[in-house]
């Protein structure tokens, strides 16, 4: 992903013969609402439980069971809508989407069809070539289905209803995305906003975030939309990008061959890296949507919405602006720091712990450099960082006040990894304090110059490169503890 981010142009065009095509992408993201209980029942939503242990009579659609809306899920959806700068609808309606499947106990999914809880909004993407606004068409609440498991028993399909009835937010974008890079940025931004809000954990491995991808192509410059295909249920950004590239090229090939594109639903085969037809428009289900008579229209007052607005935390766009204005962080660094709420929190804690004499540049470099490298290597999130913000701030302060050099700091950093050890203690125990006594350093340098007379003469004759040699020798002789700034000063004086 970093590779994609670092490219300075995220445009994606397909050239065939003399034609240049652009790809038009719209996403339907299914985000699992962070909530202890399901959308219409009190069963737990905890991930990873034993099959069919989190299923109420409502979830399994027993006769006479009725759905009762979970107010918390409604609040979560509204908060997300606010985060998407979207219109919150005072009245929305739950419909039934009717179809038969073994993991759909009711024989219908309760979803919002005509009247969603959230209307139009937008999301800002930070692309290398600048900001891009992507329109949000709507956000609606719906139930998840259960899970059919086909690969445990050779002759039977097994059904796990733990997920049945879990609340999902379906977030539908406008067809505003134009490249795999933009899709990457869009998903990450949505995920970031929802994680800031605490409305979806965005965990794609656990299926908390999945997307249906609508892809069409057209000659660049055209304003008409081509016939689209919908690629169902893709569960990672990488696969979304691969599917888009495959699908866009497939469509371009068809057009170039003079063929029509069928509007259809396709599946992405991750092993073969190709999409294939699942059902054509003619075979499309007739879901027979109608308002669920078990539920009244969902009405929320302006006061209710305003109260939620007042509970909205600072979101990534605002945080980024503040980091730039208040902390004088570069826009590039700010984008990285705010992209994930836990990174932003970590950074802000480091800043707070650094105290008055804080050094933003050092803080940013240590987090996005050393710390990120360790997290990547260990494949863990910043929330599980082996070094606390408090101790990283201490380390930075030790550099800042000259107690240690940047080089020694790296050694200390490595040692800190083993149990989040206070860097001050490492400095004292290992005697790594920087040598900043000019007299001691002068003596050390005198000895080096003495031992390397010839080189000192060559330097004086103009071989300035040799300065580095003397610095190196001095550092080596001090066991790396010499204050490099002082070494430089003394060497210049003495040579």
């Amino acid at each position, binding site marked *: 992903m970093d590779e994609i981010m670092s490219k300075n142009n995220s445009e994606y065009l397909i050239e065939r013969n003399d034609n240049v095509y652009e790809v038009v992408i719209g996403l339907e993201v299914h985000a699992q609402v962070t909530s202890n209980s399901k959308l219409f029942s009190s069963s737990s939503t905890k991930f990873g439980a034993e099959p069919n242990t989190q299923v109420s009579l409502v979830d399994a659609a027993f006769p006479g069971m009725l759905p009762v809306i979970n107010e918390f899920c409604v609040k979560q959806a509204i908060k997300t809508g606010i985060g998407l700068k979207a219109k919150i609808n005072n009245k929305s309606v739950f419909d039934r989407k009717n179809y038969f499947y073994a993991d759909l*106990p009711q024989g219908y999914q309760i979803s919002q069809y005509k009247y969603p809880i959230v209307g139009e909004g937008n999301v800002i993407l930070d692309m290398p070539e600048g900001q891009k606004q992507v329109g949000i068409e709507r956000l609606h609440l719906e139930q998840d289905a259960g899970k059919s498991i086909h690969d445990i028993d050779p002759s039977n399909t097994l059904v796990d209803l733990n997920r049945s009835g879990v609340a999902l937010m379906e977030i539908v974008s406008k067809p505003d995305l134009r490249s795999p890079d933009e899709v990457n940025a869009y998903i990450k931004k949505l995920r970031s906003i929802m994680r800031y809000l605490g409305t979806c954990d965005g965990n794609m491995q656990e299926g908390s975030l999945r997307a249906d991808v609508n892809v069409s192509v057209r000659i660049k410059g055209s304003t008409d939309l081509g016939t689209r295909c919908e690629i169902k249920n893709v569960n990672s950004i990488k696969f979304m990008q691969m599917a888009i590239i495959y699908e866009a090229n497939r469509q371009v090939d068809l057009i170039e061959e003079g063929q029509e594109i069928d509007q259809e639903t396709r599946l992405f085969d991750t092993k073969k890296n190709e999409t294939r037809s699942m059902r054509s428009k003619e075979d499309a289900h007739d879901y*027979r949507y109608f308002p669920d008579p078990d539920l009244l229209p969902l009405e929320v007052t302006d006061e209710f919405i305003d109260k939620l607005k007042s509970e909205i935390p600072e979101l990534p766009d605002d945080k980024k602006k503040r980091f730039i204005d208040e902390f004088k962080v570069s826009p590039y660094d700010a984008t990285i720091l705010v992209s994930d709420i836990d990174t932003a929190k970590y950074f802000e804690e480091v800043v707070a712990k650094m105290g008055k004499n804080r050094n933003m540049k050092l803080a940013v470099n240590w987090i996005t450099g050393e710390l990120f490298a360790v997290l990547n290597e260990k494949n863990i999130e910043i929330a599980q960082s082996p070094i606390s913000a408090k101790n990283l701030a201490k380390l930075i302060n030790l550099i800042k006040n000259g107690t240690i050099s940047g080089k020694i700091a790296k050694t200390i950093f490595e040692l800190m990894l083993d149990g989040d050890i206070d860097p001050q203690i490492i400095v004292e125990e290992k005697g790594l304090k920087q040598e900043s006594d000019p007299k001691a350093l002068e003596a050390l340098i005198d000895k080096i110059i003495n031992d390397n007379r010839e080189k000192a003469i060559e330097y004086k004759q103009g071989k300035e490169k040799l300065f580095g040699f003397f610095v190196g020798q001095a550092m080596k002789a001090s066991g790396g503890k010499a204050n490099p700034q002082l070494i430089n000063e003394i060497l210049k004086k003495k040579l």
Partner: protein
Amino acid sequence: MSEITSLTLYELIKNIKEKKISSNEAAKSFVDRAEKSKKINVYVTENFENCLKLSKEFDDKPNFDLKLPGIPIAVKDLFCTNEVRTTAGSNILNNFVPTYESTVTQNIWNEGGILLGKLNCDEFAMGSSNETSFFGNVQNPIAEDLVPGGSSGGSSAALAANLTPVTIGTDTGGSIRQPASFTGTVGLKPTYGSCSRYGIVAFASSLDQAGPMSKDVKDSSILLEVISSFDKKDSTSIDFKRNNYSSELTRNIKGLKIGIPKEYRVDGMPDEIEKLWKKGIEYAKDCGAEIIDISLPHTSYALPTYYIVAPAEASSNLARYDGVKYGLRSSGKNLIDMYEKTRSEGFGEEVKRRVMIGTYVLSSGYYDAYYLKAQKVRQLIKQDFDQAYNKVDAILTPSTPSSAFKIGEKSNDPVSMYLNDIFTVPVNLAGLPGISIPAGVDKNNYPLGLQIIGKPFDEQTVLNIAYSMEEKINYKNNITDWWMK
């Protein structure tokens, strides 16, 4: 013993409270009579042994403060009852034993009622004669080979045959009032939202409503007081102030304005229904009510509207009976084959017919023409009543366009069967309370009912008018116990 079973609920409670009859004696009487009444086929599932046991327990530790102290009661088999088989009259739920209790029945047990058993009904409450039940016809105690009405046919027959002191039914388009009318008993459909739908096998969610069925009006008021409650488990349950219906029951209806809707004089209505209605108007006047002619202009659209809305909801509500989780499962080559076989074998003809109609009217391309239009008409029907209630306090109509018909007479003619609901259906569409009380007999001596329709949540006025008219009408069922001979 036969005296116990012929007592009204009110009398039975009084006797039990005065310790003249024990709960167990009452239970025994009803069980004994039921054993001799198998021929009329009211029970789908008996709970006799347990009822006798529980009645004894009640007698050992009686609590006479309860509203139904130790009273044995049989209920329609559409109410889910914990650990007692609940079939909804369908083969597809033939083996289904709930692990939970409907709110309405729980309210009854909480007040001391004891379950006698589960009463026959049309399959998923779809029918007007109890002939669609997987468990067979029910005989109307009035006469052999006469239908008891439907869908709460087992309930009305059990009541008329003195097999339960009171009972509960459900009414989606007339399923309480029509069988009450056919058996010379009283049946009340409360305002939509009065009685919780939690734990009632759903037919058409926006129309279904549970209600009391009884031998007289006072008993209905006692039972309504027990079963009507606000329930958070039903999102359509309404939190309004409920009366103490039985203690507030009065025959003083002087000055109440009762509307007579001209549109209920339908073509081809038998003379005797017209006569009964006129008689009813006279009774109401005798009671001191003022009679006012009103118009409910959209009445003729009610039946077609109902037969779009109800099947539409039913087609979706019945999708859960798919053989996957509970109930009947027929084996199939694959999932779709299993669905098809299960639902073909599990559902009867009438249920299939309505699922097909419902699926059709919700289909894309037909939705606007049928379902959406029906919902709009439903609003107009509601408005008719709203406007009428600016002028009157209640409305008086016949309950049904005819008396009970013979078993088999209409079972091959669904449309003529559907016409039976013509006077009851508008009340469901508008969500209003309505009661049917026996008011006379036809040329065959079969009972005929009058319906009183009230304002939303005004069950008290409906009951009061019924209570005072009941006294003037002084109807008595003449039941010969022919099935025991």
